[in-house]
Structure formats: C-alpha cells, structure tokens
C-alpha cells in the first residue's frame, strides 16, 4: 500500500525544510540584532549624524546617500519597527522571509508527498500531527505577515516550528502506514485538521504573549532600552496582538472539541467519555476561557490574563506530547 520512494522523498523534503528554516531563523535573529538600538550601523544614529553633517554647512553633500532608506511602507503604519531601519537589517529580514517561504513550501511538499504515499489524509499519528501543525504555524505566520509587518516575530515563530520538527523527526517518526479502523472517517480530516490549525494559532499567540510580558517588564523598568525589544511594538500593541490571536484560536478550539465529540459518538458510541485527551481538551478550553474572562474583567491586570493564556499553551503542549504517549486512552495512536 505504501510507496517507499515517495516516503523517502517526503522525508527529504522535511529535512530540507528544516535546513532552510534553520537559516531563516538565523536570518531573523540577525535582523533583530541589527535593529537593536546602539548597534554599529544603527539607522537612526547614522541618520542623525548624517543630518548634522548636512546642517553643518556642506550643502553640496546633502544628496549624498546615507545608509538611510525609506522603510517598508507597512512598517510605519503599524507602528512596527522604527521607520529608519539599517539596510543590513532589512536585508536580513528579507532573506529570512524568503527562506521562510521556501522552507514552508518544502514542508508543504513533505506533507503532500506523505499523503500521496499513504493515499489518505496525512494526520494519522504524532509525527504527522507535528508536521502539519508546524506547517500551519508557518502558513498562519505568512498569511498574517501579508497584512501587517511581522518581521520582528519571525524568529519567535520559526524557532518553535524548528523545535517541533526536530522532535517530530527524532522522537515521533513513524513510517507511513494505513490507519486503524476507528480513524478511518471523514471526521479525521475535519477534527484533526482544525485541531492542528488551532494549535498553530495558539503557538503564535503564545509567542506574542511571551514577547508582551518581556516588553511590559522592560517598559515598566524604563531606563536604558538597548535591546532589540525597543524596536518591537509597544507592550500595549503586543498585548492586543496576543488577544487577537486567541480570539481566532478559541472558537476554533471550541469547534475542534465539538467535532471531536460528534466523531467520538460515531466511533466509540459516546460523545463524551472523559478519555484523557478529552479531559485535556476540556482543560485547555476552560483555561483559555478563563483568559478571555480575565481580560474582560476590570481590575484584572492584563499581565495576569496573559499568564493564564500561557498556562493554556502549556496544557496544549502537555496534551500533545504527554497525554498521547503516557496516558492510557482511546486517543493512543498506532505506533505513536
């Protein structure tokens, strides 16, 4: 049933995606390093020095090209990284972006090849969940990036994706195979696809949440802000982005649970049986519900609300990495 050459191609695509994404990660890290205030070719300082030279009287040098170029048009309008970015930073971000696109394409190919190889939806075991989850995280990042400047977020999306892919390849790798009977249902495509998409959005939300908490602490501390964080959106803006991601993810998770219940009734005879995975899906749902409530409660600090959201993400990770493997239940999959 399975085609070995396709399997090998799929694996090669995934390995290539990881290599490319590693470079993308480095490029994004370089980007952040170069936009940090006080960096050698920091744009604003150069620009200031440039202007001083000009005003010093040498008017003929006015048209001399400094290292300043107009920033990407969308950077300014979203209050993203400063409007005067060093060229090196922009180049690094551009490379990161291109490599992210390439890595995502390779990952999509890897998933597609695996699907073609087993003639089924490629969501049958933990290796495939991790692969598809990583793919959706990248696609979500790319999709959102077309609407606002998120180059500063690149590093914080590509890194968890790489970690996930690494774990998938090293720990969860399973040869492509057919499904066990209870998984043979169109609900697999509905329930598990939306579940992996949701986890992808939760991942982006958690990355934003962490950035918000760091930024908030820096802003509260005031003082010298020499890190790249100074060029990221303000804590307030980051908190809003965190909320935006969760507002998308929470209804999706609700749908995941409902679809899972419908499928459970069909496959196992009861729509809710407190299977460990169901328990943890419920826990995740209530924790994120608590986050949304905490954020709407006057007198509750936004920081604390975001901490609840991060606790929710810890539950998401436990639900995948621990519950699937160590807890006995009906969500135990063939060969992981």
């Amino acid at each position: 049933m399975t085609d070995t050459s396709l399997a090998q191609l799929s694996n090669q695509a995934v390995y290539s995606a990881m290599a490319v994404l590693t470079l993308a990660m480095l490029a994004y890290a370089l980007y952040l390093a170069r936009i940090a205030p006080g960096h050698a070719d920091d744009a604003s300082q150069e620009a200031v020095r440039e202007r001083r030279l000009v005003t010093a009287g040498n008017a003929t040098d006015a048209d001399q090209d400094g290292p300043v170029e107009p920033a990407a048009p969308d950077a300014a309008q979203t209050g993203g990284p400063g409007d005067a970015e060093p060229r090196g930073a922009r180049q690094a971000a551009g490379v990161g972006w291109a490599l992210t696109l390439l890595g995502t394409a390779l990952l999509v190919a890897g998933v597609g090849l695996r699907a073609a190889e087993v003639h089924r939806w490629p969501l049958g075991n933990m290796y495939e969940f991790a692969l598809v989850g990583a793919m959706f995280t990248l696609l979500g990042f790319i999709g959102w990036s077309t609407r606002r400047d998120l180059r500063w977020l690149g590093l914080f999306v590509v890194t968890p994706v790489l970690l996930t892919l690494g774990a998938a390849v090293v720990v969860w790798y399973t040869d492509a195979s057919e499904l066990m009977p209870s998984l043979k249902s169109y609900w697999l495509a509905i329930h598990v696809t939306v579940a992996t998409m949701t986890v992808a959005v939760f991942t982006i939300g958690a990355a934003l949440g962490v950035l918000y908490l760091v930024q908030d602490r820096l802003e509260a501390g005031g003082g010298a802000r020499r890190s790249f964080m100074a060029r990221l959106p303000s804590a307030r803006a980051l908190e809003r982005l965190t909320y935006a991601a969760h507002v998308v993810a929470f209804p999706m998770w609700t749908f995941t649970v409902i679809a899972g219940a419908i499928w459970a009734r069909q496959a196992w005879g009861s729509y809710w049986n407190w299977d460990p995975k169901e328990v943890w899906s419920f826990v995740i749902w209530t924790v994120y519900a608590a986050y949304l409530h905490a954020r709407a409660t006057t007198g509750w600090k936004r920081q604390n609300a975001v901490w609840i959201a991060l606790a929710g993400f810890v539950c998401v990770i436990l639900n995948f990495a621990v519950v699937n493997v160590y807890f006995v239940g009906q969500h135990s999959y063939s060969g992981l």
Partner: protein
Amino acid sequence: MSTTRDDALSTQPAPVDGGGAGGSVSQPRLGPVGWLRYAWRQLTSMRTALFLLLLLSVAAIPGSTFPQRSIDAARTAQWLTDHPTAGPILDRLGFFEVYASPWFAAIYLLLFVSLIGCVAPRSRIHWHQMRSRPPRAPRRLERLAAHRELEVEGDPDAVRERLRQALRSRRYRVHAHDGVTLSAEKGYLKESGNLVFHLALIGVLVGVAWGHLLGWKGDVILPVGQTFANTLSRYDTFSPGPWVDPTDLDPYTIRLDRLDVEFETEDTGRGQFGAPRDFLASATLTDAEGREEEREIAVNRPLETGNGTVFLLGNGYAPRITVRDADGTVIYSDATPFLPEDNNYTSVGAVKVAGAQPDQLGFAGFFLPTGVIDDERGPHSVFPDTLDPQLALTAFQGTLFPAGAPQSVYTLDTAEMTPLPGKDGEGQLRILLRPGDTFDLPEGRGSITFDGIERFAGLSIRTDPGKMLTLVSALLALGGLVLSLVVRRRRVFVRVRPAGEPGRTVVSVGGLAKDDDEGMDDEVAAVLTAPEGTR
C-alpha cells in the same frame, strides 16, 4: 462577561474596612438578607467565575492521571491493589470517579449558578437596550476616547442629515434626541452573541444531564451465527440511567452473519505489523414486527435501530468446544468467547461444564490465534489472525459456583475445585489443542474437543436522548461565541454647530467603544469625512 458587573460590585454592601485609626468605628450591619445578597454578588462576580473556571480545569486533571472506574474498572482495581495505602484514601475522595464526585459537581454547579446570576440580569438589560434608542450625546464629545472635529461646507441641518445617512449606511442605529446632535449605536449582536453563548452552555449541561437520566447502554458479546434479542437478560452488562425502565426495550433481534477482520501483514514499521485495519460485521436485523433486513455494522458506521444504536466496539475469538462424558454423550458444546488481552489477541476464557458427573468440570486458559508457548512469557499469541490457533487449558473438578455467587464467565472460581493431575500424577494437567484435536481426560472423565473457531463481535447498544440538545446547544454556543468576539459594539455621537462664516458648519464626532477598540479612531475619522465625501 461585561465589565458592568464589576462596577456593580463596588456598590455591594460589603463590610466596610473599619480598621486603622478609628477602631471604634461601628461597621454597617448586614442582616441575613444582606449577607445573602452579599454572597450572591460575590458568587456572580466576574472574579468568582474566573476562579471557578480555573478551579474546574485543575479539578478535571486527576480524571486523566488516575484510572477511572466508569471507563476502566479493571485498571482501577489494579491501581487500588498496587497502592494499598494511598488507594483507599483517594478512592474515598472520589479520585477514581472524578466526574461523578461531589467536589467536581460542586464546582461546575457553582459555576453555572454564577453564570445564570450573571447572564440573567444582563439579558434583561440587553433586551431593554435593543428596544430603546441610543443614549443622548454627552455634552463634551472631546472627552470621549476617540474624537475629531472638522469644519465643512453646508448649513448645520444639511450636514447633520448627511451624517445621519452616513451612519445608517454604516449600519448604525441612529436617533436624534435634539436638533443639533445624533446618537448612533451598532454592534448589539456582540452582546446577543455573548448571551447566546452563555445560555447555550446551560443547554449543553441540560442535554448531558438528560442523556444521563434517560439514556442507557448495554454490552453484549455475540459470536458469529448467534442471535441477540434486545431484552435485559441477554445483555452481558447493562447500565440504565436512573429514569430508565429497563424492561421496556424494543424487542428486535440481531443475528451476526459474518465478521470480517483485516490485520496488517505487510507493513513492519513500529507498531504497525498486526495492527487492525478493518472490522466489518454483517448482521440481520429483525424488528418487533418480524421484518428482516440485512445491515452492516462497522467502526465509525454504527447501526441505528430506532431504539438504541448498535456500535461495533470489540471483537475476538470464540473457539467451538465440545465436552463429552465417558459414554460419549455431549455435555457441553458451545462457541465460547475468550477475551483478548493484548494486541495479538492472546485471549483468556473458561469452559464451565456444570452437567459433568460426579463432579462438575471446569477448564481455564488461553486461546492463541497464532500461538507460541515459551518458558519466559508462557502461552501467548504473536499475531492477531488465526495462523496457528491453539487452545491451552488446565482442568479442574469440584463445585463451579460455590454458594451461587455471581462470577465472570471468563474466569474460573477455583475456591472449591481441585486441579486434575498431570499424566504421571504429578503437577497439573495441561491440555494443548489445535482445531480438530480431541483430548481424553484422565480416569474416565470423558473428553474435550476443539472443533473450530468463530469470531465474536463486541457490540454496544446505546441510547442518549439528550445528545441532540447537547449538539444544538454546543453549535449555538459556538455561533454566539464567534459573534461576541468578532462584532464590535460602538457608539458614535455627532454634534453640529454653525461655523464663523455663514454656510459652513463645525462637525464634532466622538466615539465610544465597549472594550478597547483599535479601530474606533478610524471609525470616527471615516464618519467625519462622510459629509465631505457626499458634498
């Protein structure tokens, strides 16, 4: 939930903090009604709801870490045996039935009471708001979060009319309380959706409770060729809800004609070889009126009978075993189900020959579809299909049912039985049979024959009258949730006044959003440019 409830909290008759300098300051007294009201306000406050939500998530976790009796009674019993100290204590605290435990119920019931206490007054307020006009414009619009002012062409009335049209086209409900202002509001669906979400959660809870009270489930093991009649006595286990009359079941029958099972034989990847690939039961359903119908039951494709849905949840082997007495008279002949214990269907079971004379006979042991017997693991199967089927039994004689106590059909109660001795009178008699084999029991006790193998289907028949209510409520909740998160509640106020030169008007627009709303500023700007755009 709205933030207004916390505003309400500030007016609660809470005991005033009388500490500090004036220790003699008398505190306001709360009568019993006052205390009740205070408790109610506390319970229905947002903080309490938040706390209960977090508590509920924590309380649910033990149900995944400890085995649950309602899901896996055997594993629960094993856990209790393995932990003689902690086990009974945890058991008393309900850790093996978390979701039926009083403390879990207390949390979610309090949460729902809190929810009702929050949603009911909000529904009343929302109902009035939906039918009333947007409130009067505040005197000083520049104090609102979003505000802009602009001088435009046209006299004030005409400009105001253009703004009214602009607001209408942006789907605002617009009202003019006087001659120079406009009050506009939109996004009522946000609160509607929020209320629907919370009310629908009550529907989910009612649906679950309804299904628990009026639903039932029963399990039956049915070998191929045999017929199951839907009566209480035919079920191996039957668990009715408290309000179910178990004698009132539809008298249909199900005959299992075939059971096709497929296992992985090619793929040798991790955990794949021998993994199940397909189960398909072909059955004949005969309803109460005697109409026969051929139906299929598969995993993910249950059979709806109208009174209970039949799920194929398990399968295994039922070796056909015949026991004869010394004269050759058949005293036992049946397809006897053996329960699979592992993925390769190493199965355990027992044969109870109550009619044997002078002592009753019992056989206990293993059925192995692909049998291997080694010293280390004893008899076990290495593949789930019948490649080399073997029956490994030990024999006992004595009393099968001491004191008539109920016992499992898959195990032998050997309290009042003695094992038959081995060949040379030593040890225990071990019988190994392949299909067709007959073994003569020692000392003229007759013989046992392994005639062949049938498969059995583990069927579970269930009803849940609450499931549609639960599903519809859950979907309503999802819809409401999306509305409450996506729709923005916005109020826009407009005031016009004549500008210095005639024929020109100063327009002042203020915007007020329910929560922090990034787009409010743009919204006000867009409204403000409308009179210019239509000029």
